């Protein structure tokens, strides 16, 4: 793999850029792999990467129905934070955030992790209490957060309105080492590294069936033929239920549309990420200058990657109230992705009733930030059958009533 650097860029510029190799090989499926990952999104690619890097398992194929990184990895609002309330959540998201910090160097691919800080506004007494509780929990979890005053909020975000007539800002939970990253680059960087380890990324390859023998997986049927494998990881977000049905089990997930939008680009005016959960909206400014805006999920199940406009209205309304100066900016584009939601709004990283089949799903609205940590833990689970990061997120928890509910503190959106 040709290393990327400023020096390489200059050298190639002199050479008319003729020497750049493919970022990932255009692979055709082999007859057998030690492990197959279905879904070449961030989570699937990260899983493959850590299978190779941490466990030396490199005879791996990653199968993708469409184009890699084309699902929620390429549709989210790129927020990365780890100030979660519950121990298992804080553990996997903080692992993830820590991996993000050095991911550009690790992958030799600039994923533009930008620890610009994420702020979650407290706009009711209840929210203040919830975030204070989270701050207490984070202190014991090794996650660095603090509850900050309205004055500090205004210093960090000059465009915010602290004293709106409806929900004054009472403070905020602030994680200064949280931030954003370039979402596509995360998928591309992992894909390039996986391909470099000899793994096969096979795009436009839809899985149509999962072959089992005696309760154990033996391979998959695809639009590019049958492929045998010893272990199978299903990492397909919105369509998890469909794949689980092929494997012969059911999942406690619902798929709904989550929407986002961007404004036209303007010069920098907001350096941190702000989430306002009481009014349901969050916003940051991308390096291109667009205000990147996210809101709530639709209230009905859906597989189309579109959403209803009334949610956009609610979100924009909330943000115009919070940041009045955006009123004369314009919405450039809105889009939707399908998120798979579990009953407790926490993911499933688990063995399944089918031996050799593992599932990673249910990230709901919060998957992007978890990509490296999820890949790290899920790879360990697939390699060793157990991982402290993923064990609490097993499928069994629903039967046992052992929920990991993150909505508890203050109805926190991911």
């Amino acid at each position, binding site marked *: 793999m040709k290393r990327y650097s400023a020096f390489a860029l200059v050298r190639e510029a002199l050479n008319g850029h003729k020497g750049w190799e493919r970022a990932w090989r255009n692979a055709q499926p082999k007859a057998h792999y030690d492990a197959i990952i279905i879904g070449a999104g961030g989570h699937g690619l990260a899983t493959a990467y850590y299978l190779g890097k941490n466990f030396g398992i490199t005879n791996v194929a990653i199968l993708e129905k469409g184009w890699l990184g084309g699902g929620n990895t390429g549709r989210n609002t790129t927020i990365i934070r780890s100030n979660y309330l519950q121990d298992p959540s804080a553990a996997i998201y903080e692992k993830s955030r820590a991996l993000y910090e050095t991911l550009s160097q690790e992958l030799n691919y600039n994923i533009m992790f930008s620890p610009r800080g994420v702020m979650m506004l407290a706009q009711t007494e209840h929210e203040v209490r919830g975030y204070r509780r989270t701050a207490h929990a984070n202190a014991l979890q090794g996650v660095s957060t603090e509850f900050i005053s309205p004055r500090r909020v205004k210093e960090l975000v000059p465009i915010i309105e602290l004293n709106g007539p409806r929900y004054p800002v009472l403070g905020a939970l602030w994680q200064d080492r949280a931030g954003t990253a370039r979402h596509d680059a995360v998928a*591309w960087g992992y894909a390039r590294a996986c391909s470099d380890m000899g793994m096969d990324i096979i795009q436009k390859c839809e899985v149509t069936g999962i072959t089992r023998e005696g309760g154990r997986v033996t391979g998959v049927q695809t639009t590019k033929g049958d492929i045998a494998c010893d272990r199978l990881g299903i990492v397909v977000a919105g369509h998890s239920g469909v794949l689980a049905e092929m494997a012969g089990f059911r999942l406690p997930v619902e798929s709904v549309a989550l929407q986002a939008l961007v404004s*036209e680009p303007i010069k920098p005016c907001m350096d941190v990420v702000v989430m306002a959960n009481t009014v349901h909206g969050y916003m940051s400014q991308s390096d291109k200058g667009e205000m990147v805006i996210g809101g709530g999920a639709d209230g009905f199940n859906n597989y189309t990657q579109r959403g209803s406009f009334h949610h956009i*209205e609610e979100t924009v309304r909330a943000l115009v109230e919070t940041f009045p100066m955006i009123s004369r900016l314009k919405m450039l584009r809105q889009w939707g992705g399908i998120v798979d939601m579990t009953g407790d709004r926490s993911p499933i990283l688990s063995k399944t009733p089918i031996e050799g089949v593992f599932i990673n799903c249910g990230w709901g609205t919060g998957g992007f930030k978890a990509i490296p940590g999820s890949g790290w833990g899920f790879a360990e689970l697939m390699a060793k059958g157990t991982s402290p990061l993923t064990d609490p997120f097993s499928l069994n928890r629903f039967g046992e009533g052992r929920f990991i509910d993150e909505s508890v503190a203050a109805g926190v959106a991911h």
Partner: protein
Amino acid sequence: MSTRLATGGRLTDRSDRLEFTFNGKRLTGFAGDTLASALLANDQMLVGRSFKYHRPRGVVASGAEEPNALVNLGTGDRVEPNQRATTTELFHGLSATSQNHWPSLEHDIGALNGLVAPVLTAGFYYKMFIHPRPFWKHIYEPFIRQSAGLGRAPDPEARDPDTYEHVHAHVDVLVLGGGVAGLQAAHAAGAAGAQVLLLEQSPHLGGRAPVDGGTIDGQDPEAWVEATVAALKAMDNVDIRTRTMGAGIYDHGYVLGYERLNDHAPWLAGPRHRLWRIRAGQVVTATGAIERPLSFAGNDVPGVMLASAMRDYLVNYGVAAGDRTVVVTNNDDAYRTAIILKQAGLDVPAILDAREYGGGALAAEARALGIRVEQGRAIAKVQGGKRVTGVAICAQAGAGGLLEEIPCDAVAMSGGWSPVVHLWSHCGGKLLWDDAQAMFRPDPDRAPTGADGAPMLRVAGAANGFLRLGDTLRDAEAQGREAAAALGFTPGAGAAPAAEATEEAPLAPVWLMPQGARDDLRKKAWLDYQNDVKVSDVQLAAQEGFESVEHTKRYTTLGMATDQGKLSNINGLATLSRALGEEIPQVGTTTFRPPYTPISMGAIAGEAKGKLFQPIRKTPLHDWHEAHGAHWEPVGQWRRPYAYPQPGESVHDAVMREVTATRTGLGLLDASTLGKILVKGPDAGRFMDMMYTNMMSTLKPGRCRYGLMCSENGFLIDDGVVARIDDQTFLCHTTTGGADRIHAHMEEWLQTEWWDWQVYTANLTEQYAQIAVVGPKARAVLDKLGGMDLSAEALPFMGWAEGTLGGLPARVFRISFSGELSFEVAVPAHRGRALWERLHEAGAEFGATPYGTEALHIMRAEKGFIMIGDETDGTVIPQDLGLHWAISKKKDDYLGKRAQARSHMTDPDRWQLVGLETLEGGVLPDGAYAVAPGRNANGQRNTQGRVTSSYHSPTLGRGIAMGLVHKGPERMGEEIAFAMEDGETMMRARIVSPVFFDPDGEKQNV
């Protein structure tokens, strides 16, 4: 130079001269001008700088597709960045500045980026700025951020002074686009009797037809448009809205319209923008087509313009983009521009037609006018920096070998036309590739479908791939008729008007000019003018494996600019398909997403801002609280008094005073916000038994019971007192924040699971004012009001009675959330204020004191009563809170029963409710966790409990807290340590009973 001609301009009024400024320069234009036409009339071809290389940018188009001519409009609170000059109507006093340059538009330091352009190729930033790590955040990224971004950010304290509004419309047939196709379709549907709404984004109806020539029904197109508009306006069932864009189409035919009411005349009163939310039986999009640029070196130099745009400026505004214009084309349409320029007395040194076979009748006409027409020829390169100075021509078939240089100051280009399929695609309509016309057009067999699965949208005219005037009108008539017919209307006998237009020779697709352009030319052939994406960038993306059109878009940023690729997408994906050796339809398009052009956030937000944003709900006593110094707390959509500090008194002191006054004399609380849901019907008892963990069906009329509600998963979601009104009627009190949610929860079960049960629910929260009369003197004050026997015998604890209290119709519930003797009195909402004031009057002798939510919380905590949202958080089951007594063992089922039998729920290791008493008397921080020895497998400190509520109790004179602690009830007297927010400092507390005050309940038992 670009200039205003002595005559011409069908849309301008030369008698009405308007003054405006651009970058501070005072300029003039005419009424009817767009900002772009007025700038061109003043020879201001250079209008901005591109995103990445800060290259000089001039006006290239004349409509919504413009990627270059973006300006900051307005000043102060009215600053609006990224406004397209081509769709900005000129008005007197307009003030615009150009964007993305420093120090000035003419001299921009950022243009130095162009010098290192060979390094800054597609995706360069993924390959560099990797080391050293801290540099990304502190050096590279801030620099990139500053140089990116286009328009100026409004001032942080800018407050939009304008208003916006939303309207709803329901019509049979919605026609989007008011060109000749839209007019004809509307006419056909209207004539059939359908209710028709036609939206046109520009101020003018008729679209391109009056500019492009030909005849309709033997008339000049302009005359036909005028007559047709008059005919439509005469129809009662047809409504036409100009300056209103079809912004997006959503599932099931929900259409968004965006009307710009006074952008062209900011002095007008009323809302600035109006958002239309439209439901239509059928939608016809007649959105026309957009001309494509050609990809040749220097095609971005100011002065290179779409041929159709140049024609628009000449015909509509009497403005010439240049004195000497070279026309370059792969189709006949661009000849119209050459002819019209020549006829206006302007110089057209050559028409370069890339087609070996040349053009048809229009070419002959051009030749007849003396214009030099070259076939099989192309532009190798445009000369000039901030303005075209000439073109180098070459053979289209070659690599760009120079044949000749022609001096000129403008270039009109045409690469063919792309139908505007955006709206069709927004809601799932699919496209097909029309090889003959080299365009994607809607595939009628794969139309978007409505809720009934039938197609709901049809496309008419150029948007449907019919570029010739006659075809357009025939298609529009047919689509309009079919739309009406699909809704059951009977189209009349009308037919499409006959139209004549010059016959045209077929177009030849040209995706790169010349066909085999050398490296150095491809690196100057621009696809996306705003984002600086070149042919070579797309080719590099393909070389590096970014083969999906979505990958290429994201890697190169092609089509991600404010025009969303209206000019660049088709050229870009054709370039990609050639690089991959695949056919264009195999490569496909990126996804079209709403809105068609950007719409203001203000319009999306609508009226609901400021005080109308989630309006505050007010109890009948709200004004009284306000007048008596209430310190407010938002609770759900309400505001409740947190306390009533007196002048000079701190909030904390007020709370302490209120608690003491209530415990020793008389306290009054506005409890009106508590939810009151009526459940009525023959199956009400059965329903109540399912909703609550308690047995409610056995409750006697006249009695109350404290009830718990759980989710399906067993978690406690709400609590409150239920009163049985009569055999078939229950009144359920909920928490303030829970009222709407619990009502919806009840309805969800009734409507989806128990739809055959005879139960009706109603949320009566706002129908009553409810006042808690609390304290040792509670009965005394009510007796003073008189009218009801509220003695312990007549109204025992947990009973309720109806009667007349002090002349007011009232229900009195004898319930207590404070441990004191307490009555909650409900009266009709409009009598609330009267009751409240009478209670204060009568209670004066007992020291009647209004108290707020914080005093309420402290008193309930002193008694160990739980509060939903404090002791519960969605993970707590009633059993954790020692509420086993409220869970009926006799019932077969209730919501949550099955879940509460799960292994983790019955685990003896759960955290359970206790009281916590600090050793030093201080107050534990809310939310603090009790640490346990060691760390877990992920390195986190182990914990064994947490504080759920914590207060200073004025009654006990020290800190009290409630908490959930591992096996807490079995550990009475044990001391545990709670970590402070730093995770290090500890505060020790003793586990005690959660009932801190009057454990035997003697105070309320009087």
